[in-house]
């Protein structure tokens, strides 16, 4: 019973903040709501018993990405943006697309309406660690390369004129 409450509240929180991110006129506010939504997602992870992912989500997203976005928003924010409409004129078409996609997604979702979680969630950190350094060693190393590339890219793009 507790589990349902936790699930519904967290998902409501996530979805509402996501809507806010998308619809809110003020970019700063939407970035804030982004952080909130990511936190909601982290909660869902916790509800699903994925403890390591819950922790990772909190560290990476909520604190890292959301904060980063806020910095950038602050950096680029200008007063003139406030009274500009933040949504271009194609929202009707987008809505239509989402409606159609929604029909398809819900149809699939109904397929698994009967699958119920079996057994209590187990701590997964030990297994993830063993998996990463065992079977998935190569992808693990590769992903580190991706991050390195992203780092270099970011540094390269934001270099000022005189450095070139």
């Amino acid at each position, binding site marked *: *019973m507790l*589990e*349902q409450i936790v*699930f519904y509240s967290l*998902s409501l929180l*996530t*979805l509402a903040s*996501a809507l806010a*991110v*998308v619809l809110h006129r003020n*970019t700063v506010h*939407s*970035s804030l709501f*982004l952080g909130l*939504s*990511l936190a909601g997602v982290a909660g*869902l*992870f916790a509800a*699903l*018993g*994925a403890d*390591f*992912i819950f922790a990772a*989500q909190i560290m*990476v*997203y909520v604190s890292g*990405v959301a904060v*980063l*976005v806020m910095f950038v*928003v602050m*950096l*680029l924010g200008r007063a003139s*943006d406030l009274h500009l409409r*933040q949504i271009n004129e194609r*929202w009707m078409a987008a*809505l239509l*697309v*989402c409606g159609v996609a*929604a029909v398809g*997604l819900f149809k*699939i*979702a109904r397929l*698994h*309406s*009967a*699958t*119920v*979680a079996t*057994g209590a969630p*187990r701590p997964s950190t030990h297994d*993830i660690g063993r998996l*990463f350094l065992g079977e998935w060693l190569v992808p693990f190393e590769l992903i580190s390369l*991706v*991050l390195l*590339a*992203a*780092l270099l*890219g970011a*540094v390269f*793009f934001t270099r000022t004129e005189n450095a070139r």
Partner: protein
Amino acid sequence: MTAPLTLSHYMIVAGLLFLIGVFGALTRRNIIGILMSIELMFNAANINLVAFDRFLHPEGVTGQALALFVMTVAAAEIVVGLALLLAIYRGTDTVYAEDFNLLKG
């Protein structure tokens, strides 16, 4: 309210989150808005991954491991995205998607 939680619940939540992300990406005029919507989509994917892992393969952790990967990729992507945005902003002094049509056919 007493029905037990099923995988479809999580799928619906993830689906909705994903759709909101898509809606955002398509309609937001501000590139940062787009980036944020993309973040939402990534997260929707993660929810699905973890949910599937939890419901269908409780014994293994591949779902969660994959979610981790998605996170790293998302992070990398947002970093690069923002770096690009800064470079563009410095260059064109605008962050609105309509103004960038350099690659016009």
